[in-house]
């Protein structure tokens, strides 16, 4: 299981990378490997509000559909449209495949360090 040290993780298997006042959000290597080959992604729209602990979108694999739970509350600044065309990017590069960039960040769910997340999912 690949778990980059510089990221924070939620128990719902999302990662978050803070950049100043903003943050990128995606799903973890563990999540993509459990889901299997991803075929569709639903993303919010720019300017949508996301709420910590609630779905910001969903991913569909050949096995199942799963909500992508936002680790923070905030406003969507950008979405990664590449994923809409090719969901397999998430399988091949889960930490490069950010789903949304959020700003105006408010509260967050409990966030784990890489070590804590590895222990949680190990």
């Amino acid at each position, binding site marked *: 299981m690949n778990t980059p040290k510089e990221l924070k993780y939620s128990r719902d298997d999302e990662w978050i990378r803070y950049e100043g006042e903003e943050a990128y959000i995606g799903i973890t290597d563990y999540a993509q490997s*459990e889901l299997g*080959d991803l*075929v569709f992604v639903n993303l919010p729209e720019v300017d949508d509000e996301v709420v910590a602990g609630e779905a910001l979108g969903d991913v569909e694999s050949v*096995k*199942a559909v*799963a909500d992508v739970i936002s680790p923070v509350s905030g406003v969507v600044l950008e979405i990664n449209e590449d994923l809409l065309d090719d969901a*397999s990017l998430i399988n091949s590069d889960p930490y490069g495949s950010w789903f949304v960039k959020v700003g105006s960040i408010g509260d967050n769910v409990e966030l784990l360090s890489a070590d804590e997340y590895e222990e949680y999912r190990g």
Partner: protein
Amino acid sequence: MKLIFEKSIPGRGQDIFPACDVPCKLPDAPLREKKAHLPEISENEMGRHYTALAKRAHGVNDGFYPLGSCTMKHNPRIDEKMAALPGFAKLHPLQPADTVKGAHELIAELEKFLCEITGMAGVTFQPAAGAHGEFTGLLLIKAYHTDRGDIERNEIIVPDAAHGTNPASATMAGYKTIVIKSNENGTVDIDDLKAHLGPKTAGLMLTNPNTVGLFDPNIMEITKLVHEAGGLCYYDGANLNAVIGIVRPADIGFDVIHMNLHKTFSTPHGGGGPGSGPCAYKDFLAPFAPGLVCKDGKNYERAEKSIGNMTGFYGNFLVMVKAYTYLLTVGKEVYTLAQNAVLNANYMQEKLKDIYPIAFDTTCMHEFVIGLDPIYRETHVSALDVAKALLDYGIHPPTIYFPLIVHEALMIEPTETETKETLDEAITAFREIYERIFNAPETVQNAPQTTPVLRLDDTKAAREPHLRYTFE
């Protein structure tokens, strides 16, 4: 195998009718601009084409079909025969009421039977299938709360083991879905339920037995807690086959329920219909019932605060004819269906549990779930591989990767209509596959080898779907 369009030869056709010599007098507007692409093929060739297709398919008539949560049981032929009687089959829903009294009587009688089975006060047959029944039930719940002016309730609680249709129906009805966890026994986590109940709770949707084949031992407490919070309890009747004639949903605290007539009450299904998902409700929900309601066994009228029409007319009538015939032939011994369904599932579970990890190792109801995860981690043979290997034994695979709370799930529902010999053959197949997982894993990973098509690339099919045949 060629498509029927590829077998088509211009000018070849069927000579049942002579060529039309009547000039076409239709106005231009509704006429299509291009001729329709219809295959031109002789009757003989067409018969062969469809027979060849049928030979390549697998249905209940071909072999064991333990597709969990789908109740793929044998449907008695007499039900088909009754539904094909011209007096039923050729009815038109717009016929004057006094020419269809027999049909009305059948619907009213079936309603009585289903009320007796569920303990409910009334049944609407409008819903066209299961999920439509769920949607109807939720609209009844919503109408009830709204009628009392209790409009703050916008949440429906659904366990994480639920059928995917539950949250979908809740969303359709304008509710927010609140997912609660299952406990380590695979049933509702009471503490998590309590934590989510409140003034916003419109209701709870529950399948019992649930999708891991377990009857919730805390059901009386669960429904009581929901009622105390002011919510209503919805029973997803998908698994009614497991308890029919033994447990009445109304007695264990449910207010509204749907049944799948096509599953529990025998109609061939799995091919897209027609189904029938009647919704049964307690007395206090009767004022909101959809469509036309029969109050006296003769006359149909609209309920005073009806939620409207869920579908045209009465619903899928011929499925009702089959369910009615089924219940008349089964009679008061309807509980034996549940007993045998549960017995068959437990028999298979007992015969497999020494080698396959059972997700929740306890006496099951009508189905049980294997969690292949430990074997997958050791051997890289997945639930999908096992499912594909079963095809070579002439067995339809069980449901896989559902419920989501079990990793590498294989969900097996034998149903009551299978003999011990069939179950034994399936058990032998499962045990042989287990040996192969450890001795020759590649033969499982490369299965099937004997089917008309081999392993399909389902990822490619989903990512690059070709949904239309393109004519040259």
